[in-house]
C-alpha cells in the first residue's frame, strides 16, 4: 500500500479545474445525459475530512459537507468512464496522496447506478498516521439506496464497479421481486 501522508508546507497549486460536487438530495430519478451514469461511493471516516479529489473524464472534488465523521454516501451523476481517487485532504495541511493508482481506480457505466465501494479512512488522533482502503460493502450500499433513493433504484440497474469482481447485485436482480415486496 503506497500512501503518502504528507504535510503541505507550501501553498500548493490545487486542482482548480475540479468540479465541486455534493450528493443528490432528492429521491427522484432524473434524465441523465446518455453518456452519464450515477456514481455511488460510500465513505467511512473517523474524523471530518476537508475534501477528496477524484480524477477522470470529469475531475471532481468531494467537499467537507459530505465527508463528516461516520458513514456517508455520495450519489452523483457523472460522465461515464474510468476514474481514480487521487488525494484525501485530512485537514488544512495534512493529506493522503494515493500514489498506487491501480488500487484506486473505478469505472462509471452510463445509465446505471455504479457502486464503486466504501472508502474507509482511519486517521490517528494526532493526524500523523492514516490508512485508506476501498472496501466492497455492496449490501450496505443496496440497503442505503432502498431506504433513501428507492425511486432511482427502481428505474436503474445497480452495478458493482469497485475493486475485484462481485456477482451479488446480479444475483439480487434474479430473485423474485414479488416475493420480496409481499414480505416487506
Amino acid at each position, binding site marked *: 500500500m503506497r500512501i503518502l501522508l504528507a504535510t503541505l508546507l507550501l501553498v500548493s497549486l490545487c486542482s482548480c479545474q475540479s468540479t465541486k460536487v455534493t450528493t443528490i438530495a432528492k429521491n427522484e430519478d432524473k434524465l441523465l445525459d446518455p453518456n452519464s451514469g450515477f456514481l455511488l461511493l460510500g465513505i467511512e471516516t473517523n474524523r471530518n475530512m476537508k475534501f477528496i479529489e477524484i480524477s477522470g473524464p470529469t475531475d471532481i472534488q468531494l467537499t467537507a459537507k459530505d465527508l463528516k465523521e461516520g458513514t456517508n454516501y455520495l450519489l452523483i451523476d457523472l460522465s461515464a468512464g474510468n476514474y481514480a481517487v487521487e488525494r484525501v485532504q485530512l485537514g488544512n495541511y495534512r493529506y493522503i496522496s494515493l500514489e498506487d493508482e491501480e488500487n484506486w481506480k473505478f469505472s462509471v457505466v452510463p445509465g446505471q447506478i455504479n457502486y464503486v465501494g466504501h472508502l474507509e479512512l482511519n486517521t490517528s488522533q494526532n493526524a500523523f498516521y492514516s490508512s485508506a482502503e476501498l*472496501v466492497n460493502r455492496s449490501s450496505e450500499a443496496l*440497503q442505503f439506496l432502498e431506504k433513501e433513493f428507492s425511486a432511482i433504484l427502481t428505474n436503474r440497474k445497480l452495478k458493482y464497479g469497485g*475493486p475485484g*469482481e462481485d456477482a451479488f447485485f446480479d444475483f439480487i436482480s434474479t*430473485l423474485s421481486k414479488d416475493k420480496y415486496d409481499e*414480505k416487506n
Partner: protein
Amino acid sequence: MKKINLAITLICLMCSFWGNAEPIIASKLYATPDNSMLRLSPDGKFLTAYYRSDKGHYINLIDPHRNKFLSRVDLGLDSKLDTYQWLNSSQLYFSVIYRNQRISLIGSVNKNNDVDVKLMKSKGYLLDSLTGFENQLLFAKRKKSRSDTRDYYYDLYRINIVDLINDDFSDAFKIKHDPKNVSNYFYDEQYKRILTTEYKKKEKSIIVKYIPDTGGDWTNIFKIKDYGYKIEPVGFFDANSLVVLTNKNSDKMVLRAYDFKSKILGEVLYQHPEYDLKSAAFDDQGKLVYVTYLQHGLTKFLYFDSDDSQFIKRLNKSFENKEAYVVDESADERFKLIYVNGSDEPGEYFFYNQQKNSVNRLFVSHLDLEDKSFSPSQHLNVTTSDGTVIEAFLTMPVGYDYKTLLVMPHGGPIAVQESDRFNKNVQYYASRGFTVLRVNFRGSAGFGKAFQTQGVGEFGRLIEEDITAAVNHVTELHNFENTCAIGSSYGGYSAVMLSIKHPEQYDCVVGSFGVYDLPLLFNASNYRSGKEHRKRVSKTVGEYHDDLRLVSPIYLFEQLKTPLMLLAGRNDKVADFEHTNRLHYLLKRQGHNVDTMFYDNTGHGHYNWFGNRHQSAISSDYILRTLGLKRPEPNNLTAAAKEAIAEDFAIIADGYSFDNQVPDDKKKALEYYHLAAEYNHPRSVFNIGAHYHRGDELVKDLGKAVELYKKSAKLEHQYAFTRLGRMYMEGEHVTKDWGKAHQYLEKAQLLDDNPRNNFRLARFYCIAPDKYKNFDKCLELMALKPYLKQSEVKHKKAKKELRETIAWILFEGQLTTNEQQKITDMAIEVFELTDTETTIENLRMGTFNYIESSKFGTNGKYELAHSGSAVSFTKKKSSRFGVAFELDVPGFSVNDKAQQVAIAIRWSKTLPDGSKEPIDNELYWGVPSGDWLFLKSISTIEEKSTWTLEIYDMAKNKLYTQEFFIDPDNGE
C-alpha cells in the same frame, strides 16, 4: 428402609437443580488468570509469580518449599508486566509496559526477602542473563530513531548489572555489528551467538542470521519463505548446522538437521508415526532432551533420558487425562515447577522437590474457579465414510442436562486444531446443561501434511462430511432431543452449511464472525483482491472459481430453514462484516427470522472479556429461547447457580444499556434487567429502580424507585446504599433523614471504598447537622493520595469526582472559618489554584444558539440569541439557556497561563408545586481568560419549571444568581 429412602428422596428434591455441577459465572470464567508467569530462581530458593487483581498488579515472591508468601513488588494498576527473568539467584529483570512505553527494572532480593527495585534509565531490553559470566548480561540499548522512520537501532553490550542500573556504559563491551534492517535479537548460549531476523520485502522472505557474541559480520543461516512445506528452526545442532522441524519430503513434521553452509537437509533425528512434532529441546552438549506433540488433544513430552522419561511417566500417571509439564527448574534440576491443565482443569501449579521426591500444590491460575466442578471431555475416534479416522471431543454436562447437542466446528479451517485443554467456551455451555462436540476434521493441524491438505478447498464438502460423521457417531451413542450448530469464523460458515445440508438434523444455528460468500473472500477490497491475495486465500479456500457459489450460504440462502442467529464485528477484516450483512439481508428479504448482534468497534473477535461474556450469554439465551428450553426457577438453585444465570441476563442488559460495543436498546435492556432481577441480581434490581427514577422507558415513579433501591440494598448492592444515602441526605422524594442517610452511606463505603462512596460520605460529614458532623472524617475521606498509589488513571477519575463534593460542601456546609479555610486549601492543592477570589465580567444571560463555523477544522460556538430570564421552549437540540462570562482576578494577565482559578456552580429546579430538586453541583477550574459558559439544553425540559443558577468563588463569595423560567407548553 422405606422411611430412609423417602428422606433421601426429599433431601434430593431440595438439592441444587444442577446436582454436582452448576453454571459457572461468566465473569469468573472469561477472565485473565490471577497467577501467571511463574519462575524459579536458579538456586530454587524462591518462586516469583505475576499476580493481578482489581486492586493492583504485583510480582509475588514466595518460598516454594513452604508455599509461603514472602513479599511483593507493586507495579500499580497502570502498568502491565511484559516479561521478566531471574538474572541470578538474587536479582531479577522486569520489562513493564507503562503508559504504552516499555520500561526496564532490576529487582534485588535483600536479606529481609523484600525486593528492592530500581528503574533503569537506558531504554532497550535484556537479551540474555549470561550464566557463564557472573553478574554480567547482554543488553540491547535503544538508540535515537532515525528521523525518516519510526524504526529504532540498538547497540549491543555485555555489561555489568550494577553498571546497567547506573546507566554507566563506560566499561561495557560493545558488540560491533551492523544494526540496519535488524528486528529483535536472540541469544544462543551454547554457541555464543547472537541471532536476528531480517525481512526481505521483494522476496517475501525472512532471513535468519547470526554474529558471534564478540561482534563481527552477519552470517546468513536460514531463509523462511513460503516453500509449500513447513520448515522451522529450533536451534543449533552443531557449529555449522541447525535443528529444524520440517515436513519437506515427509508427511509429518519431523526433526532434522540442516547444514546452513551447504543448505542441505540432513538426517531425521526423530519422527512420530502419527503426529506432527510441535517442539524440541537440546541440552548444552547438543543432545536431544525431548520432543513434544499433541496426542488426543493434550501435549505429550517425550524425554530421551531414562531418568527424565521416568519422571514424566510418573507425572502423567499422577495427572491422568491432563497435561502436566515442567515450566521452569533450578539450575541443578533438583527443583521443578510444574503446570497442570486439562479439559476440566483451568490451571494449577506444583512444586517438585527431587531430594524429598515430593510434589506440593502451590496455587491455581484462576482463583475464582478453584472450587468449581467442570465437565471433562471424552476423546473419540470416528471413522468417516471413506475410512479415514478423525478425532473428536465430546463434553457432556456433569449436572443438569438439556439433552441438547451443540456441534461446534473450529475456525481456520486449515492448520487449526482442537485440543483437550481447558476451553472457556466449552465449559460455559457444558455448565449450563449443553453437550458440546468438537471435531478435528480433515484440514486440521497436527496429523501430517496429507491430512491437512485434504481440507483445502473442501468448504461445505469433505469438512462438513467429517463433522457429520462425528455427529452421527455421537447421536448413536446418546439420545439428544435437540441439536444446534454453533461456531465462529470458519465455524460460523460451517454451522450454517451444516444446517443447509442437513436441515432435518439441526434445530438452530449460531454463526459468529463467519464467512458466507466465498467469492467475496477473493474480492473484499482494493488491497484484498489482487493476484497475491487470491493466491494466499486459495491455499485455504481452493482455487477461485464460480463453483464456490455452490458452497456459499449467500447463494443457497433459500435452502436455509433453520432458526438462525448471526453475530459479527463491524470492523472485521478477516471475515468482513459484509458477509454477515449479505446473509442477513437475503434472509430478511425472504421473511426468515434472524436474530442479530453486530458489535461496534470490533474486528475478528472481541478485544475485551466483556465481549466474550456477552457473546456467550446472548448465544445461549438465543438457543434456550429458540428451543423452548426453560431455565430452572430461582428457588431450585444454589446461590452460585442463581448468580450465574442472573449475570448472564445482566450482561445482555448491560450491553443494551451502556456505552460499549453493543448497540443501545433501552427497551431490551429493561427486559433483561427484569429477567436478571427474577434471579435476585442486586445491580439489575437497582437499575430497574433507576429507570423508574429517571422515567426512562417506564413512567417516572420515585416511590417505586425507592422500593427497588431498598430491595437491592437488602441484596447488599453498594449502589443502592449510596443512592438511598444521597436521597435521604437531600430529601429527594423521601423526608430528609440524616440518621438514615448516615446508615446507608456508611454501609456503601464499607462495601466498596471507591471514590464515589468515599466522597459522598465525606459530603455527609461536612454538611450534616452537629449531631452527625465530623469534619476530620470529611477531610480524611476526600484524600486523593490512596488512589494515586494504586493508579494514575484512578487518581484522575477521583479528582474529577471530588469537584462535585467540594461544590456541595461550599453550598451546604455550615463550616467554621477554620474549616472553610481547610476546604479552600484542599481545593488549592488538588486543582493547583493560584487565586481564590474572582469577579464576573462581560456577563451574557439568556438563550443561546450554536453557530457552526464556516471555516473547516474550526469549532463552532454558542452565541447569545435572546437576553432575559424567560426562555422560549424549542425542540432545536442546539439551543441552550444559561450564562456566559469572563472571570477577572486581581493582577490577572492574559498571557499568564499559570494562573488557575475555580468557581462553584449550582443548578437547581423548582416545580410549580414548590418542590425543589438539585441538578448539578460542580467545581470548575482553569485559566481565567476566555469565555466560561454554563448552559442547559432547552429541548430536553419536560415540565414547567424555574431553573436557578448560583455561582460562588472559592472564598465563598456569592458571585451571581439567576432564575430562568421555562414552560414546554409555550413555544415551538
